[in-house]
Structure formats: structure tokens, C-alpha cells
């Protein structure tokens, strides 16, 4: 018998996971980028005394300077402050959607996979239908139906993104359903919900956490795209997407204003993708998932 904690306890498993994650240099880069961005958008706006909508007609379309690090837009509003505020909106969308989509999709997938039958069939046909239409096409339609605004964009993104987690969780549960630990729990008289929540959910967590990370990135990509096209977050609320809409009208005069918000989107997507990839490697190297 081994003394102390066995590696099968949850702490041991998470510790092992953390250790494998730490060995991954790429994972560090992803985590670093993500934390840096988070700190930037939280504290960044306070580095300058400008308000989000503070118009300065004498400083219109200025280039970068010590007064305005990222220059100003066509109304003399400070681009740094606007990008940081936009980042708050875009990151909120990403995190909210990533977490909610995985919670909803994970539960749906576990229930569908464990209970099977008609319910499973109906739920998976719904997933099939959502997969039949390319994401951005479906989102274009949905965003027009739901109307503009932060709340509706979060809801429609969850409505589409939950399907990834549902498929993953269902697949995991199907592979566990016939294993001894589930049988043991059933024999000990555990209820359906107890088997699902206490036994199947913890075992399906690995792919779900990866899905949450990648979904958060996908949500930010979708939100900025929709906002850029004028169907997502609407001005005066800034988002990285609609800052680009505005800047692209002056693309010939001030290309820097187009470059900067995009770089922030790029680094955010990069950090989420790196993080998701590293987590996937740390949790299960065999786990591969194709993004649609």
C-alpha cells in the first residue's frame, strides 16, 4: 500500500495536470498573454485621464504621441482608452459565452449520452441542424432576430456554441457508460442524477475545459466579426469589432487605427487557442477536436 495521498484523489489528478501543463512552454505563453490582456483592459483606461466619449476637436486623427499613445479617432477620442473599454466588452462576451456554453452543452451531452433513447435522438438532431449551417451564417440570421446589444449577442452565441460541448460530453459519457465505476455506482443504489453529476461529470471535465477555452476564443472572433458588420455591439458601446468599423471608413488616412484594435483581437484569439491547445495536451494527448 502506498502511504499518503494516492494519485487517484482529485487533488493528485489536478496536481499532475498542472505539472504537465507547466512543462508546456506554449501554455505559459498563452497564460501570460491572457493575464496580461486581462490586467490591461481592467487597469488600462485609468492610465490616462480621458473619458471613453471625451471628444477633443482640436486633436482629431492625431498619430501616436505621449499624450495619446495610440493616437485619436476622427472626433479626437483617445484610441487607447477606447480599445481598453472595447476589450472589456469583447472579453466579457468571450468568457461568459465560453463558460455558459460549456455548462449548458456539458449537461445536455451528459444527459443525452446517459439516458439515451428519444431524448438523445432529439437533442442530437438539433445539434446536427446547428452544424449544418456554417456558424457565421447562422449568427448573421440570429443577430438580426435578437437585435443588437451585449445581452442578445451573448445569448445567440451561447445558443450556437453549446453544441461543441454537448457533442464532446456525449461522446465521453458513451465511452464511460458501460465501465465498472458506473455499474458500481448503480449497484450501490445511486440515482440517475447522482451517477451523472457525481461520476460522469467529473470524468468528462477534461474535454469540457478545453472546449470552454476554445469556445471563448470562437465567441470573441464571432462577436468582433458581427460587431464589425454592424450586427453585434452597437456604438456608442465600444467593442474591438465596431472600433474597426469606424476606423475602416478612414482606412486611407489613418491605417494605424485599423491595425491596433485588430492586433488586440489577434493576441486574444492567440492566447485562447494556445491555452486550449496546451490544456488539451496536458489532459489527454489523444484528444483531438476539429473546429468547425
Amino acid at each position, binding site marked *: 500500500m502506498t502511504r499518503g495521498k494516492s494519485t487517484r484523489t482529485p487533488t493528485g489528478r489536478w496536481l499532475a495536470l498542472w505539472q504537465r501543463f507547466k512543462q508546456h512552454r506554449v501554455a505559459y505563453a498563452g497564460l501570460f498573454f491572457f493575464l496580461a490582456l486581462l490586467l490591461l483592459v481592467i487597469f488600462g483606461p485609468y492610465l490616462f485621464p480621458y473619458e471613453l466619449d471625451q471628444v477633443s476637436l482640436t486633436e482629431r486623427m492625431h498619430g501616436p504621441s505621449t499624450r495619446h499613445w495610440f493616437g485619436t479617432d476622427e472626433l479626437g477620442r483617445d484610441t487607447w482608452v477606447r480599445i481598453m473599454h472595447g476589450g472589456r466588452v469583447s472579453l466579457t462576451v468571450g468568457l461568459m459565452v465560453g463558460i455558459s456554453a460549456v455548462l449548458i452543452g456539458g449537461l445536455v451531452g451528459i444527459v443525452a449520452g446517459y439516458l439515451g433513447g428519444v431524448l438523445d435522438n432529439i437533442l442530437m*438532431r438539433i445539434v*446536427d*441542424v446547428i*452544424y*449544418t*449551417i*456554417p*456558424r*457565421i*451564417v447562422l449568427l*448573421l*440570421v*440570429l443577430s*438580426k*432576430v435578437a*437585435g443588437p446589444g451585449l445581452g442578445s449577442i451573448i445569448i445567440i452565441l451561447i445558443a450556437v456554441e453549446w453544441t461543441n460541448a454537448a457533442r464532446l460530453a456525449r461522446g465521453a459519457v458513451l465511452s464511460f457508460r458501460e465501465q465498472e465505476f458506473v455499474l458500481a455506482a448503480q449497484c450501490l443504489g445511486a440515482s440517475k442524477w447522482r451517477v451523472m453529476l457525481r461520476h460522469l461529470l467529473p470524468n468528462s471535465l477534461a474535454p469540457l475545459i478545453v472546449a470552454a477555452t476554445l469556445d471563448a*476564443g470562437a465567441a470573441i*472572433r464571432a462577436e*468582433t*466579426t458581427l460587431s*464589425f*458588420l*454592424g*450586427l453585434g455591439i452597437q456604438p456608442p458601446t465600444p467593442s474591438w469589432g465596431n472600433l*474597426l468599423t469606424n476606423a*475602416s471608413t478612414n*482606412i*486611407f488616412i489613418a*491605417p494605424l487605427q*485599423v*491595425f491596433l*484594435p*485588430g492586433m488586440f*483581437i*489577434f493576441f486574444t*484569439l*492567440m492566447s485562447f*487557442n*494556445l491555452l486550449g491547445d496546451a490544456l488539451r495536451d496536458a489532459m489527454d494527448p489523444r484528444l*483531438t477536436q*476539429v*473546429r*468547425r
Partner: protein
Amino acid sequence: MLRYLVRRILEMVPLLFITSALIYLLLYLMPGDPLYTMLEGVPNLRAEDYQRLRVLYGLDDPVYIQYWKWLWQMLQLNPGYSREYGLPVFDIILPAFKNTLVLTLAAVVIGKSVAVLLGIFSAIRQYSFWDYFFTVIAFIGYSLPAFWLALMMIIVFAVKLGWLPTSGMTSPDVVPGTWAATADWLKHLILPVTVLTISEIIQVQRYMRSSLLEVLRQDYLTTARAKGLNERAVIGRHALKNALIPVVTIIAITMPRVIGGSAVVETVFGYPGVGRLLYVSIMGNDLVVAMSVVMIIAFTVILFNLLADILYGWLDPRIRYQG
């Protein structure tokens, strides 16, 4: 195989049916009066006329009756008239669909071949500098938002360097049907195709790499080397054949992403394809067009999935389909 095919095609029908019902319901819920664009700027419109038109177009019917009527017409390949352009929907969609097909096929052929080549190279020289380099490049390409990449391309190649046109598909000053027109059209394609290609390389590149690495470990390759074949023959004739099989499926599975991506790219570049058409029709409340475009896209995606399954079975004799 034939029985399998028939069964798969029969399975397509309910999927298309449910998809169409869902999209119809969504578009029905879309805010805005569908008569608005039609009646905009009609000065002496009376309330009775407006009511008469609503009855004429069946807008007061319950949604399932409207859907049923639409479905019945659609099955006869008669999706109706665009409210915005006043033309039959097919007259608008078919040229746009042709343009999108050119754009996506070019992007798929170029992008996926580049991806396959990079993947092969990375697998053969695993852990080399170039392996890491290509992986990083593919990762960067995947993380670039397509619409922003499009804007940056416009800034660099159209505005600063002036090599390529900013948007559209044809220049106004070229005579159609000449070589100059074809060259002009290709020039307009370069930027959209590049943007679509760059964001779509990663999936296939990584799949190709891991698939080939897996095959390279197999015993039959040792046999091939042992009987004295050179490395080119070992990889080209023995390894690649098996390694490419799963990649074919991945290419088909990622097709919806390419089609979706083309919708964004078309909108930014003002390229007259179905993606831009969808955007314009949704913005302008042109429900008939939007509905037909979504259905055509869904149909294309389902068709590609079917094609992938058939190709998979054809390429890999180990797989047998049960009817």
C-alpha cells in the same frame, strides 16, 4: 455501397426539412415589416391598400401556413421574387453562387494543398526548425480574425503598394470577354482567396502531420525500407496513401468553415457572392432571398459531408458500409 448511399441521401431529407423550418421560423421572427422596402416612397398609399397587400402576400397567415406555402413553391424550384430587387430569386442567387463557388474552390484547392505539403514536410522533419516554424505560422494564421486580415491586406496591397484592387470583382474600364478582363478578374480574386486560405491552413496542416507521423511508425514502412526502397518511394508511394485518408475527411468537415469564412471575406471585399448577398438581404429585410441563400448553403454543406463519407469508404478498403 449503393444501399448505404440511398440511405444517406434519404437521411438528408429530414435534416434539410428541419433546417428549413428552423430558419424560416427565425426569419419570420425577424423585426421589420417585409412590405416596407416594397412600399417605401409610395406617396398615396392608403391603409386599405396596405391591408389588401398583406392579404395578397399572405402575411397575416399563421407561420406554419406561410412555411408550408414556401416549402411547396421551393419544391417546385420556385422560391419567389426578391422584394429588394424585384427579380426572381434564382436570377440573383445563381450568379452569386457561381462567384462564391469560384472563390471557395480556389481557396480550398490552394489552401488545402499548401496545408498538406506543409504537414508532410513537418512530419518528415519532425522537431526540426521548419516543423516549429510552419506550426507557428499556421497557428498565427488561424488566430487572425479574417475580416481584419482582409482590411490589413487592403491597406498593404491596395492602398500602400497599389498592386491590387481594393474590392469588387471587375474593374469598370475593362472590356468583358477579353484576356484583360480575365486577368482583371484574377487580380480581384487574389486578396479574398489569400485571406480565406491563410485562416484555414492549420487544421489540415496539423492533421496531415500527425496522420503521417502515425503511419511512419508502422511496420510495413520498415519492410519497405528494408527491401531497399529509397526514402522518396517509401513516403510517396507507401506512407502517403494511408496518411491522406483521414485528411480527406477533415477537408470535407472544414468546408462549412470555408463557406462561412467566405461570407465574411465577401462582405469586406465587396465580392458579389452568396455570402455578401446574405448579408445585404438580412440588412435589407429581404427575407425571400435570405431564406434561399441559407438553404443553398445548408444543402452544399450536407452534400460535402456525404461526399466525404463516400470518399472515405472508397479510399479506405478497410471500411465497409452497412446498408
